[in-house]
């Protein structure tokens, strides 16, 4: 399935992600890593769960408001439900042990030049690329 090359929307979205990361650090002193924020509200709760719920609620509601105000968000899932569930299980275990994902390691950690985050990001980018190659060009899905 082809998707349109959208350098300006993607750059704009990336800058917004960065602004959010800066604000969360300046206001709450927290890394804007979705693994960490989400894990803190999966029981047993971390002690400061309230701001995490507020952040996640904002992240879910904002795109809905954008769509209702006439914006468009291209969205297609070319993956079957069983594979989405399998991928989800592996992502969950992976980000737990890896202590972060694209936002925490790939954006916030890399921005701090954290060697751990650089190692993690290089590792998961390569693993993702290899997996997509295997799924699409070897397994032929």
């Amino acid at each position: 399935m082809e998707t349109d090359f959208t350098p300006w929307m993607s750059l704009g979205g990336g800058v917004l992600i960065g602004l959010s990361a800066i604000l969360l650090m300046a206001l709450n002193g927290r890394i804007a890593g979705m693994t960490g924020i989400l894990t803190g509200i999966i029981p047993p709760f971390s002690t400061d769960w309230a701001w995490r719920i507020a952040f996640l609620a904002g992240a879910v509601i904002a795109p809905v408001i954008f769509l209702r105000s006439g914006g468009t968000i291209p969205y297609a899932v070319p993956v079957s439900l069983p594979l989405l569930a399998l991928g989800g299980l592996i992502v969950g275990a992976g980000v737990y042990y890896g202590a972060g994902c694209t936002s925490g390691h790939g954006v916030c950690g890399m921005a701090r030049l954290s060697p751990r985050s650089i190692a993690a990001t290089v590792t998961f980018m390569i693993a993702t690329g290899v997996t997509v190659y295997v799924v699409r060009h070897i397994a032929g899905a």
Partner: protein
Amino acid sequence: MQKLLFSGLTGAIFGLGIAISGMANPAKVLNFFDVAGSWDPSLIFVMGGALITTAIGYRLVFGARARPVFDTEFHLPVNKTIDARLLTGSAAFGVGWGIAGFCPGGAIPALGFGGIEVIAFMGAMVIGIVLARAVDGLRHKPAKAF
């Protein structure tokens, strides 16, 4: 209360950024990694824009303030060790991301508009975190909070 309001707004900026950038769109994410097929390089601009913005902004924040507005200290990771746990976990995350096309930060903002697919992914991901934490708790002392 102020902290919650601003946390919600900060989350909203994140969610909007993810949604318009294409990171919440598995078709686009998978095409970014499909260099040998229907390659769509857009996500370079997401990562580049987010990374450069954050790198500059963090410097300004850490230079201007000794502590955040709503807390007594900056909570920065103290672990510096690059170990098998970090690399194996990250490699597994990559495999799952390559299968599903969703990463945690991409999936959360899609929950409001994405339907059953993103719900299936998120449900399984939470189960994956819970299982990993349970197994980890049996083998070691409980992992410290993020």
